[in-house]
């Protein structure tokens, strides 16, 4: 992870040197922004359809993001990927032991770690309307919605924690611009409808004429907040070095509560450092 953060640190140092060139710019101008964020996080979950054990992963996070901002609207496209090891929180070092023997009497003892890996991906597209305010105001508010597809794909000896949700979430953003360099943005969203796929009650995906992926997605169905509750909040600090470059830190937290086929709950926290380029 440290290796991944080095390029960000170097970029930050280089761009700080250019900060003297910064020119005053209009508040929320028309601009494109593209950036890369790297970070760490924790994911904790309990999937009662498969296991009574609480799982915890500390995945590395990578995000590519693109924002387009006009005087009236904000658009954002985020692509997130998380990967890390995955273990039950209170049974972190389980090992399974096997003895194999063949007809000649040759035996071989094998052992395998019972833990697995955690992968998650999310692609989301948000559109927001900027509520008009005066040029002098240091606070700006935008409201809109986000369409996201989020996949939890833990791998191991069980399918605990697996789901895919294509969801629509109303979302609000509040930005406090301290001065031309510094700003803080808070956001909150909650999905109100989702095309949710979970392993079925029997925890299998096999079905006639279907691949495992096809079998898994054949369980998809529309749900609302009564079956898929997933509020998320974010807090972001941005430092604008100059008109072109900036960097920031994001803290994000989210909670999932899925009721079917049996309760699944997860808690996610992520801390990301990002650099971006405006054009």
């Amino acid at each position, binding site marked *: 992870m440290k290796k991944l953060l080095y390029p960000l640190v170097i970029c930050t140092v280089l761009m700080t040197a250019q900060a003297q060139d910064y020119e005053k710019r209009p508040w929320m101008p028309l601009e494109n922004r593209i950036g890369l964020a790297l970070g760490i996080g924790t994911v904790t979950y309990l999937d009662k359809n498969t296991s009574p054990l609480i799982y915890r992963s500390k995945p590395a996070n990578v995000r590519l993001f693109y924002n387009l901002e006009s005087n009236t609207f904000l658009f954002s496209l985020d692509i997130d990927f998380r990967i890390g090891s995955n273990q039950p929180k209170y049974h972190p070092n389980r090992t*399974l*032991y096997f003895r194999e023997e063949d007809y000649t009497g040759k035996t071989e003892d094998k052992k395998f770690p*019972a833990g697995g890996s955690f992968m998650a991906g999310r692609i989301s597209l948000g559109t927001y309307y900027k509520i008009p305010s005066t040029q002098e105001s240091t606070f700006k508010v935008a409201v809109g919605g986000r369409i996201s597809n989020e996949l939890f794909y833990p791998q191991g000896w*069980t399918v605990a924690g697996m789901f895919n949700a294509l969801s629509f979430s109303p979302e609000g953003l509040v930005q406090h611009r301290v001065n031309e360099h510094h700003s803080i943005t808070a956001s909150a969203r909650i999905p109100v409808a989702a095309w949710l796929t979970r392993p079925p009650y029997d925890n299998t995906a096999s079905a006639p*004429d279907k691949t495992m992926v096809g079998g898994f997605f054949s369980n998809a169905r529309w749900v609302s907040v009564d079956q898929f509750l997933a509020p998320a909040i974010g807090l972001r*600090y941005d430092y604008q070095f100059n008109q072109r470059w900036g960097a920031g830190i994001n803290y994000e937290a989210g909670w999932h509560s899925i009721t079917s086929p049996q309760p699944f*709950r997860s808690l996610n926290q992520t801390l990301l450092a990002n650099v971006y380029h405006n054009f």
Partner: protein
Amino acid sequence: MKTILTNCLRKLIMFAIPGLFIMASCEEELIGTEPVNTPVNNFDYFWKTFDNHYGLFEVKQIDWNGLYNQYRKQVNDQMTDAELYVVLTNLIVQLNDNHVNLYPTNSELPVFPGGVIRYENEQLTILKVQKDYSLNVVKNYVPNLKQQTEFIRYGWLSDNIGYLNIQGTDSQKDTQRALDKILSELQNTQALIIDLRGHYGGMDAVSQLVAGYFSQETKLYMTSRKRNGPGHNDFTSVNEWYVRPAGAAPYTKPVYVLTSRFTQSAGETLSLALKELSQVTFIGDTTAGGLSDNPNFEMPNGWIFSVSVGDYRAADGTSYEGKGIPPDQFVRTDKEDLLAGKDPVLEQGIARARQ
């Protein structure tokens, strides 16, 4: 400049730290808690998971509540892992199910059953070592054996007889690509031997695809339904599995399928599909008798176990769970044969194919 940066970071921290603290302190409320890890809780969780998910109580005429009463009283919170292991394995032996496994995460306790199990008339046998088949011995008969995928091999026997060995399931795409190639090469053989004796399972839909390469028509070969609720009769609607012609031209010449006591799971569902085809004859031993899907579950102590969640039947409604699919011609290869480099089952297949 420095002051502003400091102030902003301070504001961020003012929000983030409480956020982290609240999240951490509320984890129990937001996620839930694990059952306390005691032998009694482990036994109850284990028993209850079968109660909620096992798909063969009716097929096997199992009185699961009666077994609870019988075994629960053997469990107490002072017992050791080894003692709990004995009770749990004694309980699942009653299911006579090759797809029910217990994987303790304890180096002193073996995986159970760790082989092919039969429990009939209160007699337990577990075949831990496969002594009725060896790929190395097969190579004495098929010296040109080629490996096409991880699980598929093929070659030519004497007298223009083809040999296809399937030991598991690859992806559908890889299977399709492999069988297109292999069967185009073997299309001019006079007969084919399909060896499933080392097929320990995989994906049923891939077995369905494989069988299609030998079928000229669409035929029902299997039905399946799976538990979808806590009641012993809570099942999904029945899925029908059809064998459908696959590949450029189905192989319709005589086919001899070799099975053993270790042919199981998707190897058995493939056997059910091939059994529906008129040109196919089965030679060897009865299969393991574990057809249903068997996902893994976990216990509060971290041990893992698998549960047969389905009720899989042949097209005529017969369940082979716990019994296995019998061959048309019974022949058994034993350890002495293998040590002598002989394979009587394969030899019988060759003899039948020559006729």
